């Protein structure tokens, strides 16, 4: 248990230096308690150092933990998100058997001021997507296979949609994308949905087509399912797949009734 504080500029700088130096040795957790490198939050929040099975669980926990803070100001609180990344660094960037870590780019842990990178911070993205999309955030946060889930995985879907604010900010669009791409039984994205820009029906293509629809449709106010009906034939394989799986799910559920 730890009373949460936000890192100040000096704390962020020192944490960044530690990462740049290979993140070797003990975690600099003292940065979270020293008044020279951190400052108290307005509210007293106690964080538990749970071990999370996946990023969706992590996102849900963060939403509960930070529920007393104002979401609008919270979203850009660089010191807080960076402090949380330091607190859970052992799960975001776990050491190997020899105690060595392989940290990714600094912006994965330290919330970047650069608009190209801020959505890539591992803690904030988990909180933000669950905050905005609830259960549909599983599209962004879960891997296709359970064994690939880990807290340090940013994921291709989040990478491809995260930078497009008009998409990631739309509850309706993400709900429809989740219906299209997620397995209705497991709630996980199906394998192969990321693809490349030349892969028909991929997530990246959905972003491109939605950009075209954005000119003529108000997707936020469309009835459930209407958006999926508009999608061109390149999405056919994903549109038909959920129905089949859902039907199977209903039969199974009905069969299970006494």
């Amino acid at each position, binding site marked *: 248990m730890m009373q949460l504080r936000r890192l100040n500029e000096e704390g962020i700088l020192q944490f960044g*230096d530690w990462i*740049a130096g*290979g993140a070797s040795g003990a975690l600099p957790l003292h940065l979270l308690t020293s008044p020279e490198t951190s400052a108290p939050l307005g509210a007293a929040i106690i964080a538990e150092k749970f071990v999370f099975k996946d990023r969706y669980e992590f996102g849900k926990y963060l939403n509960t933990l930070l529920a007393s803070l104002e979401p609008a100001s919270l979203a850009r609180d660089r010191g807080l998100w960076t402090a949380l990344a330091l607190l859970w660094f052992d799960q975001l960037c776990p050491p190997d058997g020899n105690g060595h870590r*392989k940290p990714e780019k600094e912006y994965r842990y330290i919330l970047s001021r650069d608009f190209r990178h801020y959505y890539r911070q591992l803690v904030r993205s988990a909180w933000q997507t669950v905050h905005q999309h609830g259960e549909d955030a599983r599209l962004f946060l879960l891997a296709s296979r359970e064994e690939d889930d880990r807290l340090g995985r940013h994921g291709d879907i989040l990478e491809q949609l995260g930078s497009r604010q008009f998409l990631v900010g739309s509850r309706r669009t993400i709900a429809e994308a989740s219906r299209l791409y997620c397995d209705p039984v497991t709630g996980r994205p199906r394998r192969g949905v990321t693809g490349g820009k030349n892969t*028909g029906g991929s997530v990246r293509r959905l972003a491109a*087509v939605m*950009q*075209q*629809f954005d000119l003529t*449709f108000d997707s936020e106010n469309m009835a459930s399912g209407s958006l999926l009906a508009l999608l061109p034939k390149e999405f056919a394989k994903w549109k038909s797949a959920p129905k089949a799986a859902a039907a199977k799910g209903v039969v199974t559920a009905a069969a299970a009734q006494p």
Partner: protein
Amino acid sequence: MADWEFEELPASLVEQEPTQRDQFNNDDVELAEALVREVIQNSTDAPAGAGAVKVRFAIRSLGQNQTQQLGSLFANLRPHLQVCGVDASAIDQASVRVLVIEDFNTRGLTGNPEALDGENFHNFWRRHGKSGKGGKQGGRWGLGKLVFSTSSQIRSFFGLTLRSGDAAPLFMGQAVLSNHVFGGKRRAAHGFWFGARGIDRLQHPVSDAGTVQAMRALLGIARTTETGLSIAIPYPNQDITEQSIIGGVVRNYYFPILAGRLVVEVGSVLIDDKTFHKVAAATSSGGGAAGARIPLGFVEEVSNRLGATPPVNAQGAINGNGLAVSNFVEADIASMKSAFAAHKLLHVRVPVRLKPKAGGDANSFIDLFLKPLPDGEKPFALFVRGAITVPGENRYFSGTHAYGAMVASDGDIVDFLGDAENPAHTAWNANAEKLSQRWRSPAQTLRHVRYALRDLYSLVAERVEQEDRDALVDFFSLADKARSVQGPKKRVKVVVPVLPKRAKAISIQSRKGGFTIAPGPGASAWTYPKTVDVRVAYDIVRGDGFKAHSRLDFDLNEGELEIELKNADVTPVRSNKLRLLVASPDFGLTVSGFDENRDLLVDARTV
């Protein structure tokens, strides 16, 4: 007769794809920019003498005969392109371009072209993901050459090299596709255009004078007797233009050009230390690689000071605690502060102790330059290794109120920082594999080098007090009563000349699921036949719909759309572009079958 061949892959060999193309065409570095950076870096790695290295870029449009001649060179490559899913339609266009890149006052691809000797010829043509470079040289990863094939729409290029002592130039071609199956056999991703094979089936370059001369004339290679390397990229990517190349040169190589170490020629534009300012002023994008405007006066002042003895030398290497007060005697601190306060350029040399794993420690140094920010200007940082600017490092000088430059020119520090560099040479990585393989405590050394400029700024700028009489003018300003009696400004009536309205020659009409192109009143004045290019794309709210087009939106070549013609012929150019050859004033084109849920953007113009 030279032609294309792809080696057969033994069944036992693991397939390895050249997957690193995105490193040279991404959000941070665009293709034209990556091409400029890689080419010039390669050329400045191989100077032949003490003078400036010259690099020439030229884009040549071929005539009808030459277009056919060039196309025939790829007859045997075409099926391989098809198997690999590479669009070969560029070969069939009526008018094509060739990009030629040549360096002068350089050594060319040295080494035995008929042996695997680890020299430049071997590294350039026969290695991928491995470089023979090190020390002061810019390259490290052996991936930079991938930018040449990436720049061609058919993933191919030719190279001609002349070395000191060569009787004739050596000419060869390469295509970098993907591993594929052709003729029932697994084939490697790299294919060669070559003459004959030697020991171990090694592909030998063509040196026959007649063939080389014919290729030189066809491709527009200017080199005759000068040593160096010429690259010809057929069917270059549409985004590569003389303007985008000039922009790339201005943004990335301002430092060596202003220092007189590099001269670049792009088409008819010469960029050297004398013409640089004029060229930069005429370049639409004056921003640096990191987006900031480049204060050329400061850069030039730094360039001019490079050869001079620095007025201040730091005491002791910075490896321990970084650059601090303890590195200077008191008098030096005082003189630096007063020079900084007087808006003079500070030049400080800072020793760095490097610890190679092989051999003893090496004493090297970096040069730091600092100048206070002129009024109204934005901070700027320049990190230079050898001839390369490393824009990603600028963030280590953020939050300051000054112009700063960190120049690493000494051999050992250039060697060290080169090992830390990413493949696109845009940033240093403390965890780079090459760094930890060759150096002890590299992360700490790199950290102190990165922060040295900022540390120097903290030393000299933290207690500078300046009087600014206008600092609070916005809060305590007094109204100027004299102005209020002047009254409103008199309006000057502008007479707008009446110009005759230009008659439209092309009319674009919307129709259900498509569009029609019909003649407008101006079409009667045309001389026939006339060529009209038609571009189509689904529109988007922000950005260029044509650029954002994907063949998955629709493909005009695939027969999925209905095309009706009247007194015109049509040739597909790209998946969203048609070339219309109009025979008479009563022409028409109708295309239908588009998705009616998306808005269509149509552009038609004469060629």
